[in-house]
């Protein structure tokens, strides 16, 4: 605790002195790829059982890129909101930042271990709420005594009353969220990531927890919040990141990015088409390699409805431009870290124009789009290299899988062979040893006869001998 208050003092002192704030998190071209054991396409029951895919273990080699090159820097004393539609990679970004999921590429630097406060933080469902509190505290590094001392506070804060002694699997989602929030916020952290933690609580609890978050933010160096509630982000954050399809689509002051986002949300068909529409509309932050975009872009052009959207677009930048420019001054500092790291931070802007000669109206429109100056998002010139790396990674993975398969096969063969050998040895030793004690004679006689019969030339004598016996 002492160290945290020290941190707080130091942070406030820095802010008061007007020093350049210290970076707390630097995310440099972070990629996260999930492996999913799924085919990725609809399958009938028969397909899923009999397909070659299923024979290979049903692994359709689905690597889902959840984050594709996100780069930003967050400094102390900031509170940053993160927006984006469902499945855009916000939670993945937070998990990667908190170290729960390693980035498959790129690096994430932090000044402290960031603490993630999320709805997903299910603990052990079979256990009672009280036991879960204790476990959570111990896992966060409390000593048993500290944990025991905090349990009552947390239970009070969560307001679960007698339900605190019920198993957590019986909780409603709101109750679970309360409990998790209460646990996670029990400790002051210098980097706090709040992932929709308050979305499910009732109003009363939300107010209470927002108060708690404010307290935490005051003591924390940096707070980042994922939320779908645009209004609450506008209230609490001065800077907002917009994650779209795993890429950073915009990064700027809260007002302009949120305006941009709400406008995007309201555009007809935007939510449904997703990648294709953005590839056509705004500056494309996502990689153009998506299989859907070449197909859908001509469609959109033919329908010509997006044209009107495009024509309607020019007013947007005019509104957003001043805010952006003033923000640009602030942002100049940010790429320098990237330059330090990659040396090519400023290139994407130039290259992205070159890369999309497909649509004719773009060159005229591109420079005026508001999202462009808001820091560097997609880093498009790296796209080719990135794709190359992905392909290489996929090949590697395939090769590794084949090797694993071969090893498995070999192991099974060896096991079978060993089993057979053991059985053989066992049989041999048994035939040699078991008869030994008592029943030597009766068995030995025909044995000898057969041997004689074999060794003797195949004449009547052998047969005679057998018959004789």
């Amino acid at each position, binding site marked *: *605790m002492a*160290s*945290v208050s*020290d*941190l707080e003092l*130091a*942070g406030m002192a*820095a802010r008061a002195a007007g020093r350049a704030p*210290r*970076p707390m998190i*630097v995310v*440099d071209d972070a990629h996260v790829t*999930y*492996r999913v*054991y799924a085919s990725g396409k609809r399958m009938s029951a028969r397909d899923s059982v009999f397909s070659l895919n299923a024979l290979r*273990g049903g692994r359709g080699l689905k690597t889902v890129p959840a984050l594709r090159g996100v780069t930003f820097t967050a400094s102390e004393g900031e509170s940053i909101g993160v927006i984006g539609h469902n499945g855009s990679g916000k939670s993945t970004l937070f*998990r*990667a*930042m*908190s*170290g*729960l*999921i*390693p980035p498959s590429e790129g690096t*994430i*630097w932090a*000044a*402290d*271990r*960031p*603490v*993630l406060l*999320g709805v*997903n*933080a*299910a*603990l*052990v469902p*079979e*256990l009672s709420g009280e*036991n879960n509190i204790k*476990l*959570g505290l*111990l*896992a*966060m*590094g409390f*000593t*048993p005594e500290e944990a025991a001392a905090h349990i009552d506070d947390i239970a009070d804060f969560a307001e679960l009353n007698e339900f605190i002694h019920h*198993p957590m699997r019986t909780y409603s989602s709101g109750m679970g969220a309360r409990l998790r929030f209460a646990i996670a916020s029990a400790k002051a*952290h*210098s980097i706090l990531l709040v992932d929709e933690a308050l979305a499910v609580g009732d109003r009363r609890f939300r107010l209470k927890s927002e108060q708690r978050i404010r307290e935490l933010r005051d003591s924390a160096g940096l707070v980042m919040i994922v939320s779908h509630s645009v209004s609450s982000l506008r209230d609490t954050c001065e800077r907002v990141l917009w994650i779209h399809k795993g890429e950073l689509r915009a990064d700027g002051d809260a007002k302009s990015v949120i305006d941009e986002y709400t406008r995007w949300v309201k555009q007809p068909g935007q939510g449904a088409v997703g990648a294709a529409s953005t590839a056509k509309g705004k500056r494309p932050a996502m990689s153009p390699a998506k299989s859907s975009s070449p197909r859908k872009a001509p469609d959109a052009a033919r329908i010509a409805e997006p044209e009107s959207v495009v024509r309607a677009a020019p007013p947007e930048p005019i509104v957003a431009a001043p805010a952006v420019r003033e923000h640009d001054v602030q942002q100049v500092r940010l790429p320098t870290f990237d330059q*330090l*790291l990659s040396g090519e931070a400023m290139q994407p802007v130039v290259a992205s124009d070159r890369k999309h000669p497909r649509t004719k109206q773009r060159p005229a429109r591109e420079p005026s789009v508001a999202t462009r100056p808001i820091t560097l998002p997609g880093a498009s010139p790296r796209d080719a290299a990135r794709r190359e790396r992905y392909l290489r990674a996929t090949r590697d993975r395939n090769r590794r899988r084949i090797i*694993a398969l071969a090893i498995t096969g070999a192991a099974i063969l060896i096991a079978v062979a060993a089993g057979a050998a*053991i059985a053989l*040895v066992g049989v041999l*030793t048994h035939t*040699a*040893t078991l008869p030994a004690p008592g029943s030597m004679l009766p068995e030995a006689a025909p044995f000898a006869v057969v041997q004689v019969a074999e060794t003797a030339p195949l004449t009547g004598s052998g047969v005679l001998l057998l018959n004789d016996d």
Partner: protein
Amino acid sequence: MRAGDGPTKNVADREVSEYVVDTPLRAPAPGLFEVGRRPRFGHYLVEAWRRRSFAFTLAGYRLVGGLLQNRLGVLWIVLKPLFTAVIYGTIFGAVLSDDARPDDWVPYLITGVFIFEYFTGCFTGGSRAITGNAKLVQSLGFPRILLPVSVVAEQAMRIVPIMLLLGILLLVFGIPISWSWLWVIPILAMMSVFNLGVALIVGRMSVWVRDVQQFIPTINRVLFYASAIFFQVDKVFADNPVMLTIAHLVPTYDFIALVRGAMLVAHPAPALAVVAAPIWTLLAIGIGVVYFWRAEARYGLSE
């Protein structure tokens, strides 16, 4: 403290940032470390030790929580192995002829069954230690090694009443009580370490190749027959020194033989088992911890 440079901060800010860095590469600014890297080995173990109470608490809750749903509750800890012993006793008693049975047939059998159950519990539980706790892994940042540890701790808590039951049963079947029974405690402690090593190995493997979990019952079955639970290897392979040596080297057999040696007068442990058991233990724990630690940062990725 904070305004200072990186290394001192990391040392001073013990509470939060001990469990962090592996390689301080080129940090883009002073005081930053890389997130999502496995911590250095020493740090890792220290941090795991600091949070050990998490593992033990989890083990205790799991044990009680899993049993309290049953009417007979904690009694099942004792009832289950008892039933197993009864079943094996009747079946093999009926199948095996009298001269094929070892002396002290029933004590011999139940000792083997109970000790073997300890191994199976850790083995099976270890394979699910990470995959069965995916939510926990993805939401809290603690040293993952604590999950296999908690599995073994849970099984160790189970074995205590079982061993008491075993002692009573042995007395019932006329085995004289003696001071050598106390040897069971260090032997089981050693076996716990061995089990932990195995649980760590299989825990990591099943994260990457889920098929391991399907294969584990087979391995258990094989080990069950290879560990001389209802027969005596010394009799069966009396004329085959090679097979006898191999059979004596099976790790589960070694521990079972040691416990039998301590508790049953008629069945002293073979010398090879006395030597092999500690070696197996060291191998398992050494390989297990390092192998598990090497993937530390990636356990959150499993679906």
